[in-house]
């Protein structure tokens, strides 16, 4: 399929003109990008952003029952739980709940594994920090970063 010299010139001129015309039509199209910090995209409802603990609206307390399922299943070892069994009761209680966003891979396994639906993903995706330690969030305290 070796095209002859003049055939090739013909193909060349045709394709070059076509390509140039195409790029010019796109030049006049509306850009699709967003000016990020000024304009933000709508985040999907199911979006798996940073982890947070749910609060029971009736009691106003965290729903978590400190079963440590999420800690066990997390493939990235991002969750650390400290539990405590108060005197006189059999049930464990949540003392400290840490999640290391630097390790978290936003996989959603912890959310799936929770028996009482106490943990969820928020829609927060801007979690960059200057200091690595700041990425370790304590979720059982409503702090500045817990959204």
């Amino acid at each position, binding site marked *: 399929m070796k095209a002859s*010299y003049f055939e090739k*010139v013909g193909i060349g001129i045709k394709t*070059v003109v076509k*390509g*140039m015309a*195409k*790029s*010019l039509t*796109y*030049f*006049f*199209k*509306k*850009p*699709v*990008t967003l*000016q990020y910090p000024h304009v933000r995209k709508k985040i999907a409802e199911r979006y798996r952003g940073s982890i947070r603990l749910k609060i029971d609206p009736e009691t106003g307390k965290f729903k978590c029952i400190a079963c440590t399922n999420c800690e066990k299943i997390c493939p990235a070892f991002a969750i650390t739980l400290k539990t405590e069994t108060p005197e006189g009761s059999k049930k464990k209680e949540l003392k400290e709940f840490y999640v290391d966003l630097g390790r978290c891979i936003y996989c959603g396994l912890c959310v799936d594994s929770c028996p009482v639906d106490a943990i969820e993903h928020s829609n927060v995706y801007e979690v960059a920090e200057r200091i690595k330690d700041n990425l370790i969030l304590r979720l059982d305290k409503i702090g500045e970063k817990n959204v």
Partner: protein
Amino acid sequence: MEFASLLNTFLGRVILSVAGVMIVFTFNALIAVWLERKISGHIQLRLGPMEVGPHGLLQSAADGLKLICKEIITPQGVDKKLFGLAPYMVFFPSLLMFVVIPFSDKLQVQDLNIGLLYFFSISCIATIGIFMAGWASNNKYSLMGAVRSIAQSIAYEIPIILSILNIVIITQSLKLSEIVKAQSNIWFIVPQFIPFIIYLISAIAELNRTPFDIPEAESELVAGFHTEYSGMRFAVFFMAEYTNMFLVSAMATTLFLGGWNGPILPPVVWFFIKTYAIVFIIIWVRWTFPRLRPDQLMNFCWKFLTPLALVNLLVTTFILKIL
């Protein structure tokens, strides 16, 4: 009165010219880079720079500032003298080339008798700078880029010269102002359309821009001859590139688009409008095509452009002889 007398002294002319050239140079460095970014952005469904200045107009200035602030790194094992000298060897010829550009009937640094010849001879010096950069860098990619660059500019000088020879034959002059005056009735792009295209293609090749950017082919040779350059030295290469883009467009305007000729608006404005129209085309081409392979580049030059230019030259002389 004072001003007019200053104009007449030699020193005054030199100072004014240097100032004028620097103004055009700076203006172009800002505008051309901005245009490149904006046009490429819009072709690619993006917006391009938007933050610094209105519509990102000052982005290039900000980038220049950043590059100036960077440390000048001289890698180990380079030939220090050549390595440091190379960017300026590329840069200064482009400043010198401003000398003959006729911005309008009065605005021209020096209307040399051999203006055209001067322009294209000076433009060849830059190749030596590129080769110096590649040779001195002590880097295989740079060396390969430099070798490619030499081969390319030797090849593409020929169609350029052959295509502008048509103009010289018609006007019987190498003086740029006269060439422009000869176009007051009809621009040379009309009778000489094919040489215009040849000139444009070869000029893009001389500029090392896609689809002919083999000396700096970034997906093959990392960055070609300026792989090892950073900071201000890189900025100098970069500015030289955009200044050269302006210069070849200005030359295309002068030779084919009637230079400063045009109704109503002042001549300088016409000149810049036409020049930036050519700049637009060059940028547009860059963001449309992939890169050629070096051997295909040579084939294209020797087997297509040069014969075409020769045939065209023959036809032109023939017609002129008959008339």
